[in-house]
């Protein structure tokens, strides 16, 4: 582990001003499951580590009918996985949370950390993107809300500016007849990173797709919304031919790389297969809802 100065602010204001002051030399710690590993490997060498755990109000879930779900940045993945409210209203998030790491990791890892780490293969972004989530960001000049699909800029890069902290994720209320799914392809049954991850959320009306959001993980520098696939589906009955074409469209938008977890070619092909499957499963669940 590298040597660093440890900061433990006790209010959001103090945290923001410390991050602002030490910008470029500070790493913000939430659950620490990614950060500590990289500190130990000496991959990152921050002068300061700022732990958010004593900042009140960043933790926990609140759901209000008609308004949606607010997820504090420090809410653990395990909380998302096991929350009855999440399971009832946003089951895709609970599903995805349950596929992240091990129970031990999920007990520490947070939603905020998972998003701010901005790993292309991260587990939480696809589901949140598919539900149309927004990020509430607090910074030196006040706060702002950013749609999550503008949050990620590249591997490890987010839209957070000097002094900014992610405070909360806001997930809007779903329309009636909405359902979704997260499909993760990985070598092991657990404790693995996605080779490809696909989330789809579909809203039906009169048997047709009223709205639909698809999000892909691990196939581009950031989690990706294949808009052309969504556009194909919107307003149409979700028949097998259309689902196949949506898969094709998603595949064409994916820009995967070849790495130790899979080849670009295989990943592209799997985007097609898994998008088709995700849309089909979301459709079936929405029909049954």
């Amino acid at each position, binding site marked *: 582990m590298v040597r660093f100065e440890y900061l433990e602010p006790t209010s959001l204001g103090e945290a923001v001003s410390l991050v602002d002051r030490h910008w470029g030399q500070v790493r913000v710690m939430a659950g620490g499951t990614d950060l500590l590993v990289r500190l130990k490997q000496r991959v990152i060498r921050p002068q300061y580590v700022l732990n958010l755990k004593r900042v009140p109000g960043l933790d926990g879930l609140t759901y209000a009918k008609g308004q949606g779900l607010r997820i504090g940045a420090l809410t653990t993945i395990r909380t998302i996985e096991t929350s009855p409210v999440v399971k009832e209203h946003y089951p895709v998030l609970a599903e995805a949370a349950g596929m992240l790491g091990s129970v031990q990791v999920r007990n520490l890892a947070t939603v905020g950390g998972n998003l701010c780490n901005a790993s292309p293969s991260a587990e939480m972004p696809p589901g949140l993107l598919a539900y149309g989530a927004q990020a509430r960001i607090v910074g030196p000049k006040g706060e702002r809300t950013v749609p999550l699909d503008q949050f990620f800029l590249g591997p490890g890069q987010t839209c957070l500016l000097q002094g900014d902290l992610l405070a909360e994720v806001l997930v809007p209320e779903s329309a009636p007849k909405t359902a979704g799914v997260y499909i993760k392809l990985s070598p092991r049954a657990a404790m693995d*990173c996605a080779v490809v991850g696909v989330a789809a959320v579909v809203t039906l009306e009169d048997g047709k797709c009223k709205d639909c959001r698809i999000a892909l993980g691990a196939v581009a520098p950031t989690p990706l919304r294949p808009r052309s696939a969504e556009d194909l589906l919107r307003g149409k009955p979700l028949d097998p031919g259309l689902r196949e074409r949506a898969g094709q469209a998603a595949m064409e938008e994916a820009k995967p790389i070849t790495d130790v977890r899979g080849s670009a070619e295989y990943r592209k092909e799997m985007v097609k*297969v898994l998008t088709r499957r995700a849309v089909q499963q979301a459709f079936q669940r929405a029909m049954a809802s």
Partner: protein
Amino acid sequence: MAEFVLGQSVIKPDSREKALGRTQYGVDLKPRDALVAKVLRSPRPHARIVRVDTSRARQLPGVLDVVTGPDTLAMRYGNWIRDHTFMAHDRVRYVGEPVAAVAAVDDETAEEALELISVEYEELPAVFDPFEAMKPGAPLVHEDVANYACGHPEAHRQGNVLDRVRYAKGDVDKALAQADVVHRQSYNTPPVHAGITQPHEAVAAVDASGRLTLWTAHQSPFRLRQVLSQTLGLPMARVRVVCTAVGGSFGARATASFEPICCLLALRTRRPIALALTREEELQATFYREHAYITLELGARRDGTLLAVRGRLVFDTGAHHDLLATLGNAVASMAGPYRIPNFDLEGCVVYTNNTPKGFVRAPRIPSVIFAVESHLDTMAHKLGLDPVEIRLKNAVENGDTFAEGRVMQNVGFKKALTTFADHMKKQPPPGPNQAWGVAAGIWGLFATTTGGPPSAAVVKLNEDGTAVLLTGMSEMGGGQHAVMAQVVAEVLALPFEAVSVVGGDTDATPYEHGTGGSNTTYRVGTTVRLAAEAARRQLLQLAAQRLKVKEADLVLEQGKVYAREAPEISVPVATLAAAAISSTNGPIMGTSESGREGLIASMAPYIGSMDAPVFTANGALVEVDRETGKVKLLKYVTVQDVGHALNPKLVEAQVEGGVVFALGQALSEEIVTDRGRVLNANLLDYHQPTAADVPPIDMALIEVPSKFGPWGAKGVGEPPTVPVSAAIANAVFRAVGARVTELPLTPDKVVQALKQPQQ
């Protein structure tokens, strides 16, 4: 002798502590004043070391010592050939080779110190592909390999080729020309790590008199002591190796690598040194399984009779080689456990600038059998024959000769196959995209040789009639000591709890070659039995004198000796043991040496034969997702000949563990490198299976006794791993027609194979 403790699944004494998390491993045992050691490793695959500057590291507060190559004796060592030093001198040959080491007060200081060492390298041409390495003009990994000391002077050493073996018989070309079907295919299996849970770690300390003690988990404390003695220039009397709790070994702890560094720093600083490798170091720089490339050409008659096989095999051993002689075994195994009248089998071991290679559970054989059994499965498919039927038709039997010349005895292959077939009849039919794959295995490494086993043991009877066994063998976690205690208890008619074991300590115990080759119970068990029998003879001799009954008429049972015809004439064992102390012969203490001559004489007719070949028959049920290529293992069936299960639960645990070990290598484990650098040197991307990946495992043990093993026992630990990759690959082939010829069977390879025209 009626079985008394044998055949009982006694609980090994360390289980409870381990389950409770109380066992102390490795650096848990370091004394308070210990320093921490860390190793600086080469980032280059092949380079000349121009200059090493350690001055800044030495000046860092908290650093007590820094060593580099010139601080060490340039003494090469190795199990098979002495081709490596424990620290690079003028040249590095692989990414991860130790270049310097520091001793400091804590981890952080040691890590900082490593960063302050500057090394200037002059890059040399490197070679990473063994086929390139064999070409004329390829960069030489070792320029003077022909002059390295090698235990095998006959080894064919030329250029980067370290050894080459060929076995041939009959006329392969003619037989292939006459065959109804000939099938030719190449296979390859990547490097894999033994996957030990506990990384390599050790604590070294030097006492006031200058004697060095090393505490570490090791399969062969005596061979390790030899390396320490050679590389540090110390007489063995000044070096002691004590084996501590072992968190998995599987061959990874049969080699000496980082231990001399730990000892050198202890000798120089006169402070205890704790050195633990990180997981990255484990996967980048320890000795593990070679990349194997195998090509087979097999000819058969329409009825399935195998006529001829031609096999070519190349092992990429990386920059160093630390296996014992197993090339012949691997080459011969290209004929599988089958009678094939014509064969031409050749294999070689080649140096490259990849990471060095050594032992992993069943060295080399799972790779070879993956090829052989995949190949035979395709052949059976082409001929429209049942996979068990084609194996039964060609199966070896007693008296058949293994391709390298040994005659096989006590062969249980047909019995394993028929037991397996019976087991399979009970299975429900597979569903859509599901199928069973079948594969068999052979593990026949050890021959009966002249001179007897490189083992000794002592059994001491305490004055209260309990016993202590001294063996140089380490407890590897598989219950090896428990089984040895059972052997002693059986011979001396003692309860299991009355026998304690002192093991794996080079000062406290007699010489032992080490655990490995699945011959702990088989070989060490026989040695321990000899020692226990010697103690028993002494006990009965004393009883005969006291009871005035001939030895032959005495019975030892339930803690006493009595006359067979008059049980009231008896004496407790405790009384005899106490009386022995001041008797003419002295305290009862049996040594294996006293029975050795008789053992060797009894084995003489079998010299050069394979006494305990182990055969397995396995089945894997998979479901394959045709679109994603994902293979789901639903069920596994394994049948193994174990000779005689001395402790059935421990045998079952070994077999089950072996299957799990191997299924990772079948489905997901692979060391991925780029110019010798490991790209997945972490357990997130090096995919060992989790509990969720392991299917239900059905097991049937059969017992065809060996002659040499105690009560007929055969080796158990390695054979279960041998056929697993092939069984799974064959199941994938049967389920969806995809023949994957390269491990692991990752989804992308299955998808690729599905696009190939069906064979």
